[in-house]
């Protein structure tokens, strides 16, 4: 890990949930554990209790949307956000958090914006992180078609926004959980640590 400060600098163990209705939640869990976080899979509202932050993984956004409805997770997830707990969404996770779905970040995602699977790609992406660009993997990826004034766009591909932050919410259209570069997750875990210190 390229000199990223440990998210455990606060000395306290942090616990991060990964929404595990469908998708690559195990890959996220593996990265978070590597970075020293405690990880819990979230499938029902009670699983959100006492988490410090939450990841919504990649997967099929239609499947995850239906799963959130079936488990009645919509309101509990919005309450989690309202309590100031950081949330990180990748690919389908970005879509789940947008205006048309959970309404947790003020963006509108365009689904499958880069095209079908034959157009899926990897590209180096500059996110302003120490250590240079990240190798970003885009799979039937969305982009951010519109965003509100309080949203900070962190990166673009061919003029389309693919990473953004608004307050405690971080979204990316690619899959940092699939490579072995943990810097984007470290950035998220830092915000989880910070939010906990603020709350304490």
């Amino acid at each position: 890990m390229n000199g990223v400060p440990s998210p455990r600098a606060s000395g306290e163990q942090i616990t991060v949930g990964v929404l595990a209705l469908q998708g690559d939640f195990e890959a996220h869990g593996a990265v978070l554990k590597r970075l020293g976080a405690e990880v819990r899979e979230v499938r029902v509202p009670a699983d959100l209790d006492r988490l410090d932050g939450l990841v919504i993984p990649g997967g099929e956004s239609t499947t995850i949307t239906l799963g959130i409805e079936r488990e009645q997770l919509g309101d509990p997830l919005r309450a989690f956000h309202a309590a100031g707990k950081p949330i990180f969404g990748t690919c389908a996770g970005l879509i789940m958090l947008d205006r048309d779905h959970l309404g947790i970040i003020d963006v509108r995602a365009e689904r499958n914006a880069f095209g079908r699977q034959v157009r899926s790609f990897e590209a180096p992406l500059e996110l302003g992180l120490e250590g240079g660009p990240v190798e970003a993997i885009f799979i039937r990826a969305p982009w951010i078609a519109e965003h509100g004034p309080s949203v900070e766009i962190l990166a673009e591909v061919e003029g389309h926004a693919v990473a953004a932050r608004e307050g405690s919410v971080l979204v990316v259209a690619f899959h940092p959980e699939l490579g072995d570069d943990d810097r984007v997750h470290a950035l998220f875990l830092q915000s989880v640590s910070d939010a906990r210190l603020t709350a304490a």
Partner: protein
Amino acid sequence: MRDEATFKVKAGLAEMLKGGVIMDVIDQEQARIAEAAGACAVMALERVPSDIRRDGGVARMSDPEMIQSIQEAVTIPVMAKARIGHFAEAQVLEALEVDYIDESEVLTPADEANHIDKWPFKVPFVCGATNLGEALRRIGEGAAMIRSKGEAGTGDIVEAVRHLRTINGEIKRLGGLSEAEIATAARDNAAPLELVRAVAASGRLPVVMFCAGGIATPADASLVMQLGAEGVFVGSGIFKSADPEARAAAIVEATTHYEVPERVLRASEGLGAAMDSIESRKLDESELLSNRGW
């Protein structure tokens, strides 16, 4: 700058399908039902395996027009099947821009010696396997996802269980081997040494493995997930049952909550009759699909 169709990108789509259910559909209406029930992808084909069994004759790639109509009906990934070794069918499916190609024993094999060389394709491939050697040969040929074969179109889970247990048992056994023994295991399994070495070190296949062939109930899905499948394919099990909408949603729910019996119980209630089934061991050798391919 942009690097398309790398192996990471091909295997990555399978990662996104994990924990999900891929359903066989034969028209737009079924595709919409599958999507609305929470399928993470659909397999577009003209006849589900149980009908292929009943009808006999040569089973080929589906009519491209039919596949296209399904691509237009849903936003989830659309897969389609090519015959084993029939690289020209695969080329057609790639030109159609399907999201995954299943080089499938459910169709009549086109080549009895060679599977498709899958590396040159931009579209990723999923292939069936009954044991570890077969899975690793397919991955060596470029497959980016594996499914245990089971016995398609029967509604009998016994072969799926056999294949999953075989593959996972063989993976476990590799873990205890020395380097010299790993080379022997590669020879015995007729599998690429590099891949055998990687599996021995990591304790898992280098790509995602789903389970297929015989899943008919929510409890079947729970069973194979508990045995180590990372998701399920359901062929005839949904649209040959009494209430496809309810059964499709129930199998999705049971796949997510496979470790929670109360949830599998709830998902299993009130589904009506399952598909008509055939006991696999009563099939004649020539009627088996899982022994196609090597």
